């Protein structure tokens, strides 16, 4: 915990410098900063927990292996990680064979539904499944862009990750979000 506290003051770039000279704690700190983002982003795209875990793990491992390609002047560490994840997701989506029983409930083994689960929580859970189904209808690249935007990644960063233009990315995300919104309204969800 002390180490975490010590490194929490460090920027991503400082941590990268540290772990490249053998500071294990710095790398651990970076992993802890971004594992949730990477994992949830991958999970939204691949919709399979085990595969998402594997891909997230591979992404973190590749991040230090490909650290020579990281240029702090050109992109942030988060962008660099998302680029690695994007490539992995695209490769995965290209190669995976769709099976009828492939998709698994994301709440599996998590006991989310309990007696105390409120209607609102239940609605959000169902909403999540619909959102993921809607994302499934998009192309892998569009799905990535929307997912990254949901994770709070800026348009510039997304454009950098998917090798697109700022305007193109912004329009694509807007259009796809409008489509999802229309679908939810169609299903009778009261959004706000």
């Amino acid at each position, binding site marked *: 915990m002390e180490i975490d506290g010590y490194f929490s003051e460090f920027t991503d770039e400082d941590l990268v410098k540290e772990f490249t000279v*053998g500071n294990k704690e710095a790398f651990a700190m970076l*992993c802890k900063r971004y594992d949730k983002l990477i*994992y949830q982003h991958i999970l939204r795209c691949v919709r399979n927990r085990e595969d998402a*875990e594997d891909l997230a793990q591979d992404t*973190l491992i590749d991040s230090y292996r490909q650290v020579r390609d990281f240029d702090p002047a050109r992109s942030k560490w988060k962008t660099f990680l998302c680029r690695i994840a994007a490539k992995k997701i695209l490769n995965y989506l290209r190669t995976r064979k769709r099976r009828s029983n492939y998709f698994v409930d*994301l709440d599996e083994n998590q006991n989310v539904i309990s007696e105390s689960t409120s209607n609102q929580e239940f609605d959000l859970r169902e909403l999540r499944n619909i959102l993921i189904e809607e994302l499934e209808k998009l192309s892998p690249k569009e799905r990535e862009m929307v997912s990254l935007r*949901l994770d709070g990644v800026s348009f510039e960063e997304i454009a950098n990750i998917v090798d697109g233009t700022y305007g193109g990315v912004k329009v694509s995300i807007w259009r796809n*979000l*409008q489509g999802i919104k229309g679908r939810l309204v169609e299903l009778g969800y009261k959004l706000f």
Partner: protein
Amino acid sequence: MSKDYDDYQNLKSQSVESEKEDTEFLEFLRKIEYPNPPNSIVEKAIASYERDYKYRILWRSIKLKVIEYKEALFGTRGGLEIALASTLILFILSGVVYYQYTKPQNNPINIIANQETPAIKVSPNSSDTPIATPSPIQTIRQDDTKENNQQAITKNDTKPRKPEEPKDLYKEDNNIAINNLKRDKRTNNSVKTNAITNAKKKSLTLSNLVYVAVVDLKTGDQEPELIDTEIKQELIQAINNSGKWRLSSVKDAEAIFKKQKNDGALVLFDKETKNILWKNIDYINNYKNNKDYIKTTVETLSNYQKQ
């Protein structure tokens, strides 16, 4: 044409609308929670990092330790006592290691390994007393007799030794063995034990001696001198009277009395190994002074086996 225009207008309107992001809907979607990543993801990634970066991690930890040590050494962070103690321990250890690896010639194993049989070296001036030298270090090989004997004589000439009684032969033998072992006290216990065993084993060689031959006491092709012939007869008589040794032919003998070619000393040497078991360079004078000298000497040497 009109369709293209409509598409263009549509795209244009989308671009304009997309300039204003639907933040409310985005925030709504962000409320949806997803499962947290399991700890195993980070743990496995770190384990993989440790494997791939093991040398860098090691090098970094060494550098940190050195810095820490230097800081402790110069008192900027305390712990100076620890730093000094570790320096001292390191110094002692390096000394021990240096000592162990730079003194291989003192290792008795090497010496003992090259020696098989003990010998008795006799000072030329200690006319009456042969000195048993069970230590392998003092063993004289027949092969090296020319140089070694000459050196022994020179050395002993400068420091004449007081004659001792023949009956102390065994005692002195043991004392020398013990002294040699004390000298080798740097070696470990097992080596010491080996040295003791070896010394005891080698001291038995003289005591096991039974068949002794006497050849003409002459040097080269010269005829033996009268005194040498007389001494030879004394030797034969003494051997026959000893009751322990048996006079035999040269062929059957275990050890032989002869006159050494280079220095004219009377020696008793092992026929097999050529090791000198007893030697006296001044035997003629001793015999002239004391007619029982030969008899006493043979008795002493043959009785040696009784001890």
